[in-house]
């Protein structure tokens, strides 16, 4: 479970500061598919990076499986990122001089189980329809294939949570649908998904939808059927009807 308690983040902006995230409270339960909606610059990516231990909040705490993430030493946070979290970014982020297989294997360098991961990488890439592309370089892959390799990479260490930042942002509608099906499939296999996007149409894939505006988070939809509230924000907006 990931829980953010009153986290805020400010960035220097000229002489003053710009508040990207304001006192956000959110709880993400195991196995949930959580979508965070917001326009460009709304603070949704900053929020995701704080939940994933990539950006340290100026205020508040992020608790991951009972551990206060930012109270941990770098080595421990890195270990959590390596073993329990998988990241998918808008761009594929593949290393151009490594093959698809080697790109998927990169996170295994940090989990300490490269031999197991080698078998796993072949399996995941094959299940994503990339069995023939194991030795292809990123320049030889299509946009959809690049994205699937990036998703495969996020799964290689078998993390419990996948954090996805605009994973379909640069894809056409058909490819977007394919990629979202893959992500939903991953969720159905028991992994928690936290995804940020500007595209409200993707809400239908998720259990809960949150909206971020000017750094303030509000829950919009809860399709999960659970009674437990998923958030409490300072400027909480009451739940609207299901979209």
């Amino acid at each position: 479970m990931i829980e953010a308690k009153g986290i805020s983040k400010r960035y220097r902006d000229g002489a003053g500061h710009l508040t990207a995230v304001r006192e956000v409270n959110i709880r993400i339960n195991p196995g949930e598919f959580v979508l965070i909606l917001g326009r460009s610059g709304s603070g949704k990516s900053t929020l995701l990076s704080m939940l994933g231990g990539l950006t340290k909040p100026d205020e508040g705490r992020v608790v991951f499986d009972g551990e206060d993430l930012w109270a941990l030493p770098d080595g421990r946070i890195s270990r959590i990122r390596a073993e329990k979290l998988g990241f998918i970014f808008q761009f594929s982020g593949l290393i151009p001089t490594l093959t698809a297989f080697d790109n998927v294997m990169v996170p295994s360098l940090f989990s300490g189980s490269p031999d197991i991961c080698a078998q796993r990488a072949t399996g995941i890439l094959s299940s994503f329809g990339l069995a023939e592309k194991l030795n292809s370089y990123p320049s030889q892959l299509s946009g959809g294939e690049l994205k699937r390799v990036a998703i495969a990479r996020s799964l290689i260490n078998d993390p419990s949570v996948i954090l996805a930042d605009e994973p379909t942002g640069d894809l056409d509608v058909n490819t977007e649908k394919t990629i979202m099906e893959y992500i939903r499939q991953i969720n159905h296999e028991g992994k928690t998904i936290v995804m940020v996007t500007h595209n409200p149409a993707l809400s239908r894939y998720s259990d809960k939808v949150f909206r971020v505006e000017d750094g303030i988070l509000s829950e919009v939809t809860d399709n999960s059927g659970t009674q437990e509230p998923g958030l409490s924000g300072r400027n909480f907006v009451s739940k609207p009807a299901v979209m």
Partner: protein
Amino acid sequence: MRPLKFSDLVIQSIRQRPFRNIATILCFIVITGTLLSTYFLVGGAKNSVEVGMDRLGADVLVLPQDSALSGEAVLLTGKPSTFVFASSVQDQIARMEGVEKAAPQIYIGTLQNAACCTGRVQLIGFDPILDFTIQPWLISELGRPLRRGEVVVGSGFTSEAGSVLTFYGKNFTVAGKLDPSGMGMDESAFIMLDDAYSMAAASSSDAIAPVDIRPGEISAVLIRVSPGADKEKIAADIKDTIPGTHPVTLNYIASKVNSQLSATTQVLVSITAAVTLVSFPFMALISTMVANERRRELALLRAMGATKGFIFKTVLAEALAIAAAGGLLGVGISGLLLYLFEPLIIGSLQMPFLWPPLGSLLVQVTITILIAVAVGGAAALIPAIQSSNLEPYDAIRRGER
């Protein structure tokens, strides 16, 4: 499929920037090449002097004052020369306190392109009774002393045992060949003192040009000092008490060679220092550029679980690998060039030279490569620290724009 290794990550990163890597490697080639060349010349000369003086077997060599330069040239490079002083010098030296043995030698430069001579070489006549430098070698290698009409040649001669050499119209049979020393004796031929005198006496009729040497004249006195005696003091005493003499010791020769080499080594050291000073900011800049270009990639590694230490290690390893490659190439190329052009280099510098011992050479090669690696590592240190401290998500997002 083979699991990915840390080295694969480093190698793939190096592959992405071939031109900049070549530029950096060239810097390291120059740095290590000049460093190794400096050691090669200094170490080779030092080794040659040590081996040569040891082979010579004398603690002090006394030459005529007015032929000091010619005498030193005979000793260091084997440049043929003829000079003499009175043999009474040898008697005076032999009587001095601290002198255990004193053996005379006579130096005769032979003629070039003359029917009477095999070629222009340095002929050295030694006294078989008093000699303590050539005779021991002859006994151990030939199992007998040298006979009249025989010659022992230095390693620079192509003649083999049994062949005949002609000097001033007189034939000498080659009895053996000395091991290389890098000094003048490699280009010298050794005969018995009486043969030298009789050859000189007959030269007016047997040779194109006569040798102006008469019995009772000698060119040098080789001295072995008594155990515990101070060689430098004895050399100084000889200079003070026997006018017209020029004593030479190992220290003197070593400092002479060093001063001879100093101009060359200064140039080489200056080149090394200049290249290092110019290259260091260049290499630091390249490391910074590479680290900046890799910001997103490094940030992605952080997102995937890399620790700060891993990022530091990755950036540093790339710089170290390039430095090591440059260092290896540098020592390889300079070693090959020095090996191929050794005669030309040594000939133009007019200095004694003997390849430094293999062990010492390997140590120097290792040190040279380590210096290159240290310079490369130092240049990449700040970029490596900066990269390890970058804000991962910020770097990833900046890379997306």
